[in-house]
């Protein structure tokens, strides 16, 4: 009983450390683990896909800028600026910086969902993106 809680605690500390130190390099798997530990859930890739590709009562979905299948480059929905592919298999720079990951989740979830995403939602999205070839 104590063990998962301990792991969660360690993950939270590691994650906070990763956020505080922007130079800290992470991997997508590590970030997913940190988010699942924070939320005390298991990441479900298909839930991530749904969150990513659906609209949530607002104008945009994540796909509006990143594309339906983000193995391809996207385009900013209002400015038209190209956005490099989000899937880490295609673009190895993605999800390697905890602070950057947090910044974009904060902003983009606010635009798409109208609130910050939960740690569970972030874990789901990363899990789905990691399944993409």
């Amino acid at each position: 009983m104590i063990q998962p809680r301990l792991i969660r605690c360690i993950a939270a500390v590691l994650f906070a450390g990763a956020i505080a130190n922007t130079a800290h390099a992470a991997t997508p798997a590590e970030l997913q683990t940190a988010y699942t530990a924070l939320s005390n859930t298991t990441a479900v890739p298909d839930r991530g896909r749904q969150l990513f590709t659906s609209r949530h009562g607002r104008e945009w979905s994540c796909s509006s800028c990143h594309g339906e299948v983000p193995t391809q480059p996207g385009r900013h929905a209002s400015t038209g600026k190209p956005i490099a592919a989000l899937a880490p298999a295609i673009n190895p720079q993605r999800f390697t910086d905890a602070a950057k990951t947090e910044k974009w989740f904060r902003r983009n979830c606010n635009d798409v969902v109208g609130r910050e995403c939960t740690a569970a939602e972030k874990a789901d999205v990363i899990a789905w993106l990691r399944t993409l070839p």
Partner: protein
Amino acid sequence: MNGRHSVRRTLWAVVALVASLGAFADDHRRGPAVALFPKYKQECGACHVAYPPGMLPADSWRRQLSNLQHHYGTDASLDAATLGELSAWLGANAGTYKRVREAPPEDRITQSAWFIREHDEVPSAVWKRPAVKSASNCAACHTLADQGDFNEHAVRIPR
């Protein structure tokens, strides 16, 4: 004969001088190219062209930075430390010359009188092309926009 030659030479010299002054005035009108602060390029250039700071007055930049949570329909919020750095740099490099001194409507570069004038020969259908999409998408036509070069010789309007 000799006198006429020297008059002609003088005339050419005057023409050359006027032409070079014209070129200088043109460059000056565009504003000096300011090397972009790397953090500005990184943060502000993620969603759109990192617009040259001289294209807006300090008041416009200040208002934009104070309301990044609601930045033309998107959340572009930044942490306080980054905000402070960008604020200092934009304040120091904002446009001060005549045509930029006054804040444009909604602090939009694309609503500035000079911007509208410079683009008055671009048909409205061009702006709506999928490859252009928005007047804020400078790089769609200004191929060197990401380097702060908006010279019309580098303009290629996509079909």
